[in-house]
């Protein structure tokens, strides 16, 4: 009896301690994450005179906004695809390096370069691929290939080159554990039954990797879609992206209707939610056979 009473007192004390430890976190998330996003979404459904309407969304069908969405989606899709395909091959090549030290070196390189993003990255590409950049000069002098004026770093093509740079390491870090999950016994079993390398990859390796590849693709897409600093530093207002347009509304550099920015943001959040949803499903599948 007494021990039970003591236990009850203890749980009561624990409850107060528990709540005081955990509630600040939830309050903070509500105040600075959930509430602002909810208000933003709510605002997007009201017109300038405060009446519930879809006029902001209708406004998005103007050419400026449609092309912003088109540019953002196209850029994100292309660099996600590049990142996924190249990253998979590089990840596999890293994994098959015999020397432990060199493998660790490449893994560290992938790890460290995830920090080289945003403005420093954009600026680095201006240095090497600008009109007088060292790589531009090397191409001209050694390969006799003039990149300019057909190519421009301050353009869509320049963005593709720079975005692929920050997509690659992310994909490599994501795909390496999936490759390690492919057990060598499975390959040995396939080979002992007469499968060729191509057949092994076509019927066993690739299907097992598919969830990881899809997870990587949507993760990289979301990553590129939300990026702002690289694009702003490289192209500024020359090329319209969803993030740069929303930022222009905040900084007041280009005068758009703030309500339209909220509608743009809401549509973007739906796209992001879709990406995260696919990511969660595929990553749990990918990790499922991994364990």
């Amino acid at each position, binding site marked *: 009896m007494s021990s039970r009473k003591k236990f009850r007192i203890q749980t009561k004390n624990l409850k107060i301690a528990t709540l005081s430890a955990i509630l600040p976190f939830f309050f903070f998330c509500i105040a600075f994450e959930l509430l602002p996003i909810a208000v933003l979404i709510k605002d997007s459904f009201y017109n300038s005179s405060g009446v519930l309407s879809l006029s902001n969304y209708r406004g998005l069908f103007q050419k400026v906004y449609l092309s912003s969405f088109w540019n953002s989606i196209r850029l994100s899709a292309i660099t996600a695809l590049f990142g996924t395909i190249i990253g998979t091959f590089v990840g596999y090549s890293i994994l098959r390096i015999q020397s432990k030290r060199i493998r660790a070196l490449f893994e560290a390189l992938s790890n460290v370069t995830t920090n080289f993003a945003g403005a420093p990255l954009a600026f680095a590409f201006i240095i090497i691929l600008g009109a007088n950049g060292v*790589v531009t000069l090397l191409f001209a002098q050694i390969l006799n290939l003039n990149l300019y004026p057909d190519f421009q770093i301050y353009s869509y093509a320049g963005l593709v080159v720079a975005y692929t740079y920050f997509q690659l390491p992310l994909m490599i870090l994501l795909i390496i554990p999936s490759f390690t999950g492919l057990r060598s016994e499975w390959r040995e079993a396939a080979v002992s039954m007469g499968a060729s390398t191509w057949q092994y990859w076509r019927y066993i390796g690739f299907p097992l990797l598919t969830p990881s590849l899809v997870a990587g693709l949507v993760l990289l897409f979301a990553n590129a879609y939300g990026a702002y600093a690289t694009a702003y530093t490289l192209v500024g207002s020359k090329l319209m992206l969803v993030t740069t347009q929303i930022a222009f509304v905040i900084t007041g550099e280009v005068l758009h209707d703030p309500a339209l920015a909220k509608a743009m943001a809401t549509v973007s959040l739906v796209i992001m939610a879709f990406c995260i949803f696919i990511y969660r499903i595929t990553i749990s599948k990918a990790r499922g056979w991994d364990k």
Partner: protein
Amino acid sequence: MKTEYPARYIILILFGLYMLIPILATYLFSVAVRWDRSILPEGYTLEWYVKTIHHPYFIVTLKNSFFLAFYTVLLNIVLIVPAAYIAHTQLPSAKLPMDILTILPFGIPRVILALSLITVYTFPVISRSPFLLVCACTIFSMPYMYRPVSNSLEAIDLRTLNDAAQLQGASNIQILFYIIGPNIMNGIISGCLLVFSAIFAEYTLARLITGARYKTLPVLLVEFTRRDGRIASAISVFAFTVALILSLAIILIARKDRVSTVVKH
């Protein structure tokens, strides 16, 4: 199998060049006298670094970036560590909402987070203040803190440690500080380093929330990419070197962690 080797080496060499050339070029550009008409710089100098350090805004923005990262780390520790500990020990039902709340920021582009915060917090003092910026940075960086802490809580056998300590007559506070704390310290330190390096380099939130009122180093860097490339490269080198040191520290801690778990089993 052996026939594949050349292709694999070519892939790795091209990858290495693609990843390293932009970084090395930035370092070289920052010490080059002039580098826009020759393959190699026309001479080397430290002039741009001297100019950068003497620029009146450099020290101010450096300080701002440092304090921003510092307070964000602090707020992260206060909010995440106790909550994650409770969720793992006494309130398992809080784990799922916590997981979701700390994953959500990955799905909210920073431009949109900034827009939503300045829409809601329009009243004076808070509106576009450094305080709001720290809160925004904390939301954005929570996943970096939560995941290592949560992983290290998962890795240790909390129940056994707890029971053993209670059997020896330890109080809850003692258990927290002497038993649990040291066991998840590596997770907390990794989290702190990840948050610090993410916020030290954070441009979007700083520019859109505080703008000219509280300029950080990355904001100054972007201004200089349009004005003076030499100073921009010096700031860039400085920022990346800080990030490089922090990420090497994280790799070392992770490796040490792996070794200690191997020994344990």
